[in-house]
């Protein structure tokens, strides 16, 4: 069964698009990422023009993240206070990043920067998460066989490490984030939000795959709260992007978005339930493998000669 897309001006298999939505929604619910870094290239592979693929993807992420946010909120996994701070930073950083890209496009070399940022960020984040989770899983096994004295020594070591973050605790506007069980200066999530916002705008994605590691490793939030809070933040970012793309560029294909969200909203719910059954480190290692696979694919795309030397503008 085929459906003609009024803005993409192409015909696609209904089941293929719904299936893609289901797959990416599943990842969204599992890991708290919007899936833009995965969905946009997949849509381009089935013949959707790059500009329409990126804009419509943002529209379907609104649905998947709304569905995921609701599911995580019911489970008590959304830190609204932290989410709002990251959102303020994200919006500011997004605007800054769009400006940076505008300047770079005028001077040339924007495509090079975008591709390189993509490969480096995906590679670094993926590799870091992979080895960190692998170590954590190994430690869990070792802890299970440790004596009481050894456990006490390890705990003291951990406390000494925590005391080192004195510089961050010296920052003003310290506040307690009840849901995450952490204390940080408000400057930290806003600043990190700006940083991710700038990178996300340069790379043309929602930034979930960057925000998740930032929350885990820099804000020290528990994995399950990270997922819910990330989805909450992504939902608002994509609302802004969808409206601007529809209003300024006319590139949102509502029919394609509906087909994708049919799959992604259900996938997000299944992903959330599945995520409850997996341990935090197992989730992290799975996400790391996906991120690394996308990085390898991108590197191959960069070094192997493409079959076509002409392409439409836009996209990655």
């Amino acid at each position, binding site marked *: 069964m085929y459906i003609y897309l009024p803005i993409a*001006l192409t015909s696609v298999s209904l089941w293929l698009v719904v299936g893609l939505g289901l797959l990416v929604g599943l990842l969204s619910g599992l890991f708290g990422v919007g899936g833009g870094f995965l969905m946009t290239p997949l849509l381009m592979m089935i013949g959707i023009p790059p500009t329409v693929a990126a804009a419509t993807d943002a529209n379907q992420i609104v649905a998947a993240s709304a569905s995921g946010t*609701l599911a995580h909120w019911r489970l008590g996994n959304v830190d609204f206070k932290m989410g709002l701070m990251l959102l303020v930073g994200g919006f500011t950083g997004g605007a800054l990043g769009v400006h940076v890209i505008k300047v770079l496009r005028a001077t040339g070399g924007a495509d090079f920067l975008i591709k390189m940022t993509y490969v480096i960020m995906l590679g670094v984040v993926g590799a870091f998460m992979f080895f960190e989770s692998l170590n954590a899983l190994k430690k869990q096994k070792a802890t299970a066989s440790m004596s009481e004295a050894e456990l006490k020594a390890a705990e003291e070591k951990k406390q000494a490490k925590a005391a080192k973050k004195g510089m961050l605790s010296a920052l003003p506007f310290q506040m307690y984030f009840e849901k995450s069980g952490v204390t940080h200066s408000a400057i930290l999530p806003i600043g990190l939000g700006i940083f991710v916002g700038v990178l996300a705008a340069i790379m043309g994605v929602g930034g979930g795959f960057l925000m998740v590691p930032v929350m885990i490793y820099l804000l020290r939030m528990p994995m399950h709260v990270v997922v819910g809070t990330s989805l909450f933040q992504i939902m608002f970012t994509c609302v802004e992007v*969808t409206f601007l793309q*529809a209003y*300024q560029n006319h590139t949102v294909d509502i029919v394609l978005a509906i087909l994708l*969200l049919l799959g992604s909203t*259900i996938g997000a719910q299944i992903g959330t339930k599945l995520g409850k059954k997996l341990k935090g480190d197992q989730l992290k290692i799975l996400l790391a493998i996906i991120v690394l696979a996308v990085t390898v694919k991108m590197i191959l795309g*960069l070094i192997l000669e493409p079959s076509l030397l002409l392409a439409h503008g836009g996209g990655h």
Partner: protein
Amino acid sequence: MTQLKRIFRYIKLVPVIFALAMFISGQAMALTCKVTPGTIPISLGYHGTKVTISGDGLDANDLIIQIHSPPGEEHLKYKGKAGGIFWMKLGTMTFENVPGVYLVYSTQDTHKLLSPETCKELSIGFDALKKKAVIKSDLKDLDRDRWLKEYMKFKEEEHVYLEKTGVIKIDPASHAYTAEIDWPFEAPPGEYNVEVFAIQNGKVVDKAEAKLKDMRVGVEELLSHMAFEKPALYGIIALVVAIVAGFGVGMVFKGGGGH
């Protein structure tokens, strides 16, 4: 004698009658072209369609049918090696005086039927298009032939450029022809020219033309109109649909526990 004069008068009329008969028969033998359907409706379930091009009055052994949109320009990105290592989009390339859609069907390869000069003069075949196309780019030392070849390859991959033989059926007894073609869904909505050339001994001996329309109808037309004419409303609807769908499915899966 009077009777002989009358007969002679009738005999004088014979060439006139013969010439008239020839003229009438000549008129009936003119090549015709009919496109069915003349208008292709693009509805929600559209995935391309079959189009039949037929006609009669064919007094030749070979035929070329070409369907094309009016010549225009297309802006594309060209890829190359950045720093001698990475393949990526390096700049813009504009192709001018090229049709967006160009489909050619013939009884034999066009270059076997017509000389390159005739093809160029009548704009028939890929080679003729290449000769008329203009490329503008920021690329230094532009290899025109190479990039035109790349352009044709790009358009063929998109299924909007095609050169094909074996589709046209000719019935010499009735001087009729038929071609059933697969109209690609990738062809954008618009009006297309259908041209039929009758070829005999390397020359075009007759020509017929028709129009083919490809237009959005129903929901497709409504959404397209809204996206371009009322973009704010379109954007809000897209968001409302997404949020309602997201929360709606969330409600259906309510058994998740929690608060």
